[in-house]
Every structure is written in C-alpha cells, then in structure tokens.
C-alpha cells in the first residue's frame, strides 16, 4: 500500500527532460540580474525612511531627499563644490530692505493632477502655516524671524521678517521650510498631507507608490514645467546599514549610495567595476564635550589639561580611517565663520596636560566618558582612553544606545544631565553658522548644551550675528564665538567627517558641497 502511495507521488521525468531543465537553470543562473536593469531607472539609497510628505513634519535631510524630487521652492541649492543658490520657482527675488524680500514667480509653473498654476498664494500658504502654533511645525525654527508672506499679485509677494535674519537665504528658503506645496490640494485634504501619495506635486518626479519600510517609487512628472527629468523612474530605497548599501551597489541593485568612512580607502584604491566614488567634506561636527559646571572640573586648569591630553590626529587615524581632517570648530570650511585654526593644537601635549594637573594639585583624575554605541565614537573613546592615561587621567567609558544617549543631557529626563562629565557627540548642520551656534547658548542648558557652557558674550554675539547682513562682520562674530567655546575648556573639536558617495558610472550625480544628493538634478551619463 505504501509503495503504491509512493508511486502516485512519483513525477515521471525522462532523462532528456532533466537535462533540458538543468541546462535552462544553468543558463538562467549565468544571466546576471543587472542585465535586466533599465537605463531609465535610477535607484538611490536613503539611509532611513523619510517621515512623510508634509513639510510640517519634516525633520532633516531625508525628507529633503524626497521633497527635492517632488516639490519646488523659490530658490534651490546649486549642485557643486560651493554653497550657493539658484532661482527655481522665482523669476526674481531680492532683499528689498533688511526685513523684506520681494519675489516674482515664473509664469506657467504647474501643479500636477489638474491643480493649475503655482501662484503667490501657494507660497504664502506654504510658509505661513509653519508659524501657526496648532500646526506644530518641527522646522519652524529654520524660519527664524520670518512673520508672513504678503501677496502683492498672482505671481508676486513680499516675505516679511520681524528683524533681519541672515540665514533666510541659506537655510529657510532653499531647504525644507522653503518647500512650496499646493494650497488648494492641501486644503482639500484637510489642511495636512496625510494621503498615501501627495495630492499635488510640482517637481520633476511624482510619487507612484510608497512601500512602507522599503522604498518610494517615483516616476517622471508629466506636468513638470521645467526640463523633463532624465529618468523614467526613481526609487528611493531604504537601506539602513552602510555595508549592506555598499554590497547592493556592487551587485547593481542601487546606483547611488553613501558609504562609511571605513570603506573609503579600499574603494579609492580598488573601485568596483563600473563605479566611481567621490569624497566630500561633511557639515557635521564631532567633538568631545566637557560639562564645565561639574564641580570636578571647576578649576579651568583641569579642563585645559583634559583638552591638551586628547590627541586628535590619532583619533582621525583610528576612528576616521585617516580620511577626515581635524576640525577647527563647529563651522565647516566653506561657510561663514570657519576658523583657520584652533587655539589648542590638534596634537596632544601630554607634558603640558600633566603640568596643568600638577598646578591644580591633582595626582590622578578619574573621568566618565559617555558615548553612543556607534563604531566611530566607541573607537574614538578607546583611543582617548589609551592616550589620555599618559597624562595621568583614567577614563571610564560608558556606551549607550541612541535613545538613552540622546537624553543624557536633557533636564526633562531626570537628573543625569547635572552629573555629566565627558561626552562625544556629533551634531548635524545646515549651511549657515547660526545653526551651529544655536545649541550652545545659555538657554540650551538642560536641552542640547550638555557642556552647560554659559557665556554672556557668546549669547549676545549669537543673537547679533543672526541679524548681521555684512558677511565679513558675521564671519568675525562666529569665529569669536568658537574661540569663546574653546577658551572655556569645554570643547575639543574633532572633525566634520566626510561624505563618501559610491555610484554607477552610468549616471552623473548632483550633490551639495557636503555630498548630500540632490536627486532632482541627477542625469544619465
């Protein structure tokens, strides 16, 4: 009986059929997956999933990656090596007084899906809604002293500010807060974009599908009023892990990705076939911060000793794989306020550190260093631990996962912030120095100013520089502010890091000077 059962399951295959099947399988196996790739399709890696389509909920560059493809602004960043902006929706835009900017829109710029022409009312709606308290815009601070847009004609208007706000040209208008959305479409959707795909777009691409947790599928927007996009389809693919993204690029599954600093030397010496790599100085800033209010560091000589005992070149070599340069402050090269050099040289001076400790009457100093559990910062901590011991300082490293780490210095999350000693942090940055210094004013203590650095001159300069429109004067003010930070003994600046991009040689990518992709300007080679 069992034998019969076995017979019924038997699939009769002749030897010829088996051979034919095996041959077909072998042929299929030899045919590379990439051969099916369509040249009109572009796959770009996003390292996390952007939040959603509504600029009210935007929080950073990931949203900009998506918005740049589907929405337009009055002005946009120019791809290239230098920070500059170019006209986008605006035919003309100029600062007519310290607190007003007049703009005129190009004629005939259209919304998709039959929502008509883009008007000054759309610009007013898009910017003014960030100022409405109930809307809880996350990027309201980017607009600074902006108050409202006055519509002076169907295609013209005036941007009003309470007082001069220099970053409006560098942060507000060409970045997230400057994104123009369709008033009619958003109002019809209930005042907020919560739909599966945006109701109306204006950029070179439109959203076809959002596969949650996986990718955004965009296709060429037929209603785009500018020069048609080069790619029929663009996929923004969420790949969290740098190594996975690098492998995906090598396998041909993504066309453009950033890669970790650890891969730069290897890829530069031995790039994968059909790929190119570019390395850009990033805008981020990494630093070792010291809580100047902690009684343990009340003596300035102790703080200075610690700073002298941190050897930045060693950290660059071990943690940043020798591809990043030591920084001179929190403001990156190419931006107003960048300092040519630090007050304390990047190289450690252990003898000086030891002498300062002796002067302070300290034989052996024990310090706790809190770091985030990423490879770069834990390696930095280990290098510091090994080297700082030469000055008679024992470093205890505490590693935290991100949720725990980012609340260490926050007053609303307990009392830990008061007892902080040393931390290693990295902050992101926008291309205006105001964004860098904003976190270190006195009112940020208990929030983002974990060093608890409080300096009246710094606070005043930060406030004044915001409204200073003379670039030379502004430059001087921000340099002075970084001097004050360093003089406090609370900061050892490490680096701005690098952004390395690996991409197929079949495309011509467009990036900001810091290497962040501007996908809307990507072209086929």
């Amino acid at each position: 009986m069992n034998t019969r059962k076995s017979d019924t399951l038997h699939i009769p295959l002749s030897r010829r059929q088996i051979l034919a099947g095996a041959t077909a399988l072998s042929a299929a196996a030899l045919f590379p997956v990439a051969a099916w790739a369509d040249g009109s399709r572009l796959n770009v890696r996003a390292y996390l999933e952007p939040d959603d389509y509504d600029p009210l909920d935007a929080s950073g560059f990931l949203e900009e990656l998506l918005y740049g493809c589907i929405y337009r602004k009055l002005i946009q960043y120019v791809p290239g090596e230098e920070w500059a902006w170019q006209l986008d929706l605006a035919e003309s835009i100029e600062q007519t007084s310290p607190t007003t900017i007049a703009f005129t829109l190009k004629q005939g710029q259209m919304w998709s899906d039959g929502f008509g022409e883009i008007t000054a009312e759309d610009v007013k709606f898009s910017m003014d809604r960030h100022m409405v308290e109930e809307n809880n815009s996350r990027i309201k601070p980017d607009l600074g002293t902006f108050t409202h847009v006055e519509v002076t004609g169907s295609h013209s208007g005036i941007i009003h500010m309470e007082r001069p706000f220099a970053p409006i040209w560098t942060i507000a208008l060409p970045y997230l807060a400057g994104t123009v959305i369709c008033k009619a479409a958003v109002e019809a959707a209930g005042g907020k974009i919560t739909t599966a795909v945006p109701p109306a777009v204006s950029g070179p691409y439109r959203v076809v599908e959002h596969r949650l947790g996986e990718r955004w599928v965009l296709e060429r927007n037929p209603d785009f009023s500018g020069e048609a996009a080069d790619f029929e389809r663009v996929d923004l693919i969420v790949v969290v892990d740098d190594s996975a993204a690098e492998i995906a690029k090598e396998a041909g599954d993504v066309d453009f990705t950033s890669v970790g600093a650890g891969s730069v030397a290897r890829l530069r010496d031995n790039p994968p076939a059909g790929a190119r790599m570019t390395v850009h100085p990033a805008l981020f800033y990494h630093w070792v911060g010291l809580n100047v209010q902690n009684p343990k560091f009340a003596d300035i000589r102790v703080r200075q000793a610690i700073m002298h005992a941190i050897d930045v070149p060693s950290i660059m070599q071990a943690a940043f794989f020798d591809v990043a340069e030591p920084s001179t402050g929190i403001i990156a090269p190419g931006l107003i306020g960048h300092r040519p050099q630090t007050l304390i040289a990047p190289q450690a001076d252990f003898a000086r550190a030891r002498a300062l400790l002796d002067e302070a009457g300290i034989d052996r100093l024990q310090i706790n260093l809190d770091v985030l559990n990423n490879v770069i910062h834990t390696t930095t901590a280990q290098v510091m631990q090994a080297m700082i011991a030469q000055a008679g300082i024992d470093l205890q490293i505490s590693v935290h996962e991100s949720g725990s780490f980012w609340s260490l210095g926050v007053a609303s999350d307990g009392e830990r912030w008061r007892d902080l000693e040393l931390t290693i942090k990295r902050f992101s940055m926008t291309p205006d120095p105001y964004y860098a210094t904003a976190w270190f004013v006195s009112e940020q203590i208990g929030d983002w100013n974990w060093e608890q650095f409080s300096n009246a001159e710094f606070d005043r300069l930060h406030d004044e520089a915001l409204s200073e429109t003379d670039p030379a004067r502004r430059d001087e003010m921000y340099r002075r502010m970084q001097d004050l930070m360093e003089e406090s003994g609370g900061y050892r600046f490490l680096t701005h890091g690098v952004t390395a991009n690996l991409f197929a040689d079949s495309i011509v990518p467009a990036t900001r000077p810091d290497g962040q992709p501007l996908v809307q300007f990507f072209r086929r080679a």
Partner: protein
Amino acid sequence: MLQYAFQRILLALAIVFVAISALYTIMITLPGDPTTVLLGPRATPEIRAEFRANMGLDDPVLMQIGNFWTRVLAGDLGTDFNRNRPVAEAVFNALPHTMALVFGAIFWSASLGILLGAFSADNRNSWLDRISGILSVGFIAAPSFVVALYSLLIFSVTLRWFPTIGAGEPGDLGSRLYHLVLPSFAIGLAWVGYVARIVRASMLETLGENYIRTARAFGLPRRVVIYNYALRVAILPAVQVLGVGIGGMLSSAVFAEIVFSRPGIGALIYDSVSGRNYPVVMGSMLVAIGFFVTCALIADLVNAALDPRHRVKS
C-alpha cells in the same frame, strides 16, 4: 484533545498578556525621552509638551498600560506619531514580510535538516555521517549575520543570482519568492543544523523500534522503511523544536531585514526602539509575540494530534 487545546489557548493568551505588560513597563522606564529623540533638535518646548500629552507620557505607568490594553481590545494599536499613521497599518503592512521570512527559514531548515538528519542516520558511523555531523554543527555555530553577508557576497555580488535588497514587486509572487531566497536561507541555515541533529538522534532511536524490525522482516525496501515509516515518527521532535524556534527566527529576522533592507516587524522594532517610538514598539511587539505564541501553540497542537502520548502526559 478539545480540552487540551482549550488549556493551551488560555495559556497562550496569558503569556501574551504578561509578556506585553512587562515589556511596556520596561520600555517606558528606560532612560530616553521620546520627545527629544523623535522630534529632533528643532522642536520647540511647546511642541514637545503637546507631543508628550498626545502620547500619554505624563500618565502613571499603570494607567498607560491599562490604556494600552483598552485600546488593543478595541482593535486600536495607537498612532505612530513620527509618521502620523495608525500603528496597525505599519505593523500589518510589515507582518506578511516577516511571516514570509520566517516560513521561508522553516522551509530551508525543515527540508535540508530532515534530509541531512535522515541521511546521517541511514549512514550512521560512516564517513558520510561524520561529514554530515561536522556540517550540522558548523551550521549551528555560524552566526546568521555572517551567513547573510557571505551569501550576499557569493550569490549576489559575485554570481549575481539573487538581489541584495528589497522584498520584490508587490503582486508578483515570483519576484517576492526570488527576493526571499537569500534572507530566509541566512536565517534558516542555523536551524538546518539543529533539525539535522535532532532528526538523526530520533531516527536512530526509531530504527531500533520493534515495528521497524517487523517492517524489515516483511521484506519492505530499506528506503521505504526509513523514509516512509521511521522518518514520519522521527520528525516529531523536529516539529516541536521548529515551533519554539520561531522565536529565534523572529530575532534573526531583525538583522536579516536590516542587512537585506526588507520591510518587516524586525526592522520596524529596531527603528522604533532606537527612536523611543512607544506606540510602534508595543504594536509590533504585540503582533510579534502573538505570532510566536500562535506558532508555538500550533506546534503543540500538531504534536498532540500526531502523538497522543503528548496530550496524555500534558
């Protein structure tokens, strides 16, 4: 059998309740202010205050847990405040991907593991058995992420047989399965070793049973005796192990979903835990634990159905 099933279902519900309540308590007592982590540096104090109020973070812990269960019983898993969408939408969008991954891993582990185990038992103490033993232990010892990375390097980068990322085109079963091969293999390989070892031991025990000797005495072919008679009984412990092993596979799914950039519960949990996105963490955990407990329950019931001794003992 009915009474046994009823007892098991009650126990499963109790496990889910206790596990989720304990997890909720741990989650909200962890250091890390979700308003800081979720909203980022630009958020004003007013936005943070409103966010805390919306999330109910100012309520006492017990009240938060009570509110959570009240909502769950009403079919509401809460709202993902980071992306303004219902948690249920995110979770149930991710769940099929994780289920496919886990079932794919079970397919690999069961098919290869049972074959390897049966083959080993059939050739016990031969050099083939020894090689099979080494392979099985090697599979168990190899960390899944190493298997994943090497699979990618060999089958995707070098041979270009399989894609490295994604879950395939929606609505295209072929594409979905094609994208499932490597990630499920990476998770399932370790379980191939476990299953092979268990099946081998169980087979050797079964082959010594009287009814096997009787079957042989009747002159049935060796292949039929081993694969039709002995293996049927010998795979029972493997079914039990795979049922419980789903928990381990769910854990491995976290890294597989990240390395292979697939959507899924694991990736969702990873993302939401580091972002202190409590509603998503709890919604995902509820579904993941529910899935695990259901699979263990099914394995229990299948075992009881296949082997009456099991339910009598219980």
